[in-house]
């Protein structure tokens, strides 16, 4: 039951110091219950999308280890920008009553048919609950 909400902002940047504006950011719910959640945003001059509100589970599920449900909702993000390699991040975690910031480091396209450096196209956040 996803009856609470969290918020998400996506920031696209490059070289650690330049914003990537005009990047298209698509956000989709990864869990079945939120599979109809679908956003398409564009980053502004500072590389930020607008902050959107996303369904998340009840805050009670993160309050104690006895909770039987996963305390966050999972979303998949795809970012494309001209002259940069596209990027996908699977499993972005959204907690209720919490702001999340997803910073995406964009890498300029090398040209000459070369692909992105290893490990930079796709990130998968493991669906981890509190464990050690």
């Amino acid at each position, binding site marked *: 039951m996803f009856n609470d909400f969290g918020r*998400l*902002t996506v*920031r696209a940047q*490059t*070289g*650690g*110091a*330049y*914003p990537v504006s005009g990047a298209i950011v698509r956000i989709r719910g990864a869990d079945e219950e939120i599979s109809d959640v679908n956003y398409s945003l564009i980053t*502004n*001059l*500072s590389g*930020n999308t607008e902050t959107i509100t996303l369904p998340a589970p009840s*805050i009670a599920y*993160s*309050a*104690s*280890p006895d909770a039987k449900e996963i*305390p966050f909702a999972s979303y998949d993000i795809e970012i494309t920008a001209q*002259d*940069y390699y596209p990027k996908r*991040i699977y499993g*972005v*975690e*959204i*907690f*209720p*009553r*919490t*702001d*999340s*910031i*997803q*910073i*995406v*480091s964009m*890498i*300029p*396209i*090398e*040209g*000459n048919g*070369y692909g992105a*450096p*290893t*490990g*930079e196209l796709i*990130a998968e*956040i*493991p669906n*981890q609950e*509190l*464990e*050690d």
Partner: protein
Amino acid sequence: MPLTPKIPNEIVVHLGAPDSAAQNVALSFPDYIKNVASSEIYPTWPEDALRANILAQISVALNRVYTGYYRTRGYDFDITNSPAYDQTFVYQRDIYGNISRIVDEIFNNYIRRVGAIEPLFAQFCDGVEVQCPGLTQWGSVELANQGLDYFSILRRFYGDDIELVTNAPFGDSPVTAEPPTLSEGDTGADVELLQRRLNRISSNYPAIPKIRPNDGYFGPQTTEAVREFQRVFGLDPDGIVGRATWNQVLFIYNAVKKLYEVTSEGLSIDDVLTDYTTELSRGAVGDGVRTVQYYLSYIALFVPSVISAGFDGSYGPTTESSVRSFQRAYGLPETGVVNRQTFDRLESVYRSMISNIEYRFSPGRILPFFGRVIGEGAEGDDVRALQEYLNYIAQTYSEIPRVTVDGVYGPATAEQVRAFKRIFGIPGDGVRVNAPLWNSIASIYDDLYTGSSPANYISAHNSFDDAELPSSLNGKNELGGDDRAFDQDMPITMDHNELNEILICLMRHYGFHTNLRQGVFLQDEIKKALSDLSLVLGIEASSFSTTELIKRMKAERESILRAKKIFGEL
């Protein structure tokens, strides 16, 4: 006085168990902690539980770095991402806003045993699936719900004999003064420094308005710039510069500055970007190595799995490791040796990063060095920008002629460059514009455009007052009493950190190899450094007292820094 461990600028994380063949990634220390905290705990927990956990995580990381736990065992990283060995880190995950703000505030705080120097290896576990000595995460939630503050929570788990270290140094300065909270109505040098930093950041983030003039008065313009900065970087947009905002300003400023610093550090005034001539590997020195190091360090700013090399022109283990990380990231054989294939690829990747920035002049915009040394006959957007900068500077310095901005480097532009070099004391008759000269011109332009005078850069940097040598370092015991170079009757009085910093600067400048690092006191390395440098400074080591030797080095360092300011360290 115990040596205070320093917060590292960057931490290198291995994305697997220590012996696994996984990639390493480098990131800033606060970003690392934000990631760990977001991976290990829930953001919905009470604030004191969050703070207690974050302090434990910071202490674990600092312990690994300070003790060199992995490095001394021959690994090329500081810590792993595995909770079985260290703590959870999930590369590229999302970060929670409240956790981010707490980390911005306390990333240079940690805990240690009373009387000890090293940060505590503050072991923790979840407390339900696993039990352990030390903090249990669910236990901390319960204690916070009972009303305990974060330090009491930590003492409950780690014992009463722990103490909290606040304000550990980070960045380039040997000491960190607690930054004052600034808001509208304040005036002074701190406000001016803030304004200058924001103006530099706004060159990359145009939504942040420029503050003109940056006169050290925190007025409505400054408030608006602060608010916009806070909005862009996910801070509470209250227009007040408290700890978290100050720290973010510093880190973003450093990131922005880094791109220029890389270009100016990597090349001296006479260097030219070299072409591939010969295979480079361990033991090589010189321009070819410097070029490779420069490329690697620039690329490292864009690709976290490429670990940056040093700038010393000497191909040692760090450079080899850096080359390997590049080869791994780009699918080349991981030999650690720069052959033709690797060099060509370095150049190709570097150029893609340079050319990707929309390279067009607009008023107030500082463009990075384009990646080619330009001289008479060159044409392009970089020449155009150069002409714009020099024309603007000519408005204040009338000895510089003005030219038609046509993007073609002809005799008129050459005359501009010559005049600029004369006015700002840059040696050499040449008019070719390489990276340091470019940065110097851009920084003077920026000063004038943002309304601060170039002299500010020199005075605002750490001022070395020769009359003042802080706290005691017993020359005989710490540095080896056997060595005749040191006058045993006159103990050196200098803070460890400052000594380290001076020696590192001078060793690098003169091209000597050193294992000296910030935040760690290495006795033998200090002896070696003093010995090497006394040769360079033309001092017969045995005929100078240590105090005088250090005074001389301080003066040398001061003049190097002054020159660097002119040559492009912004």
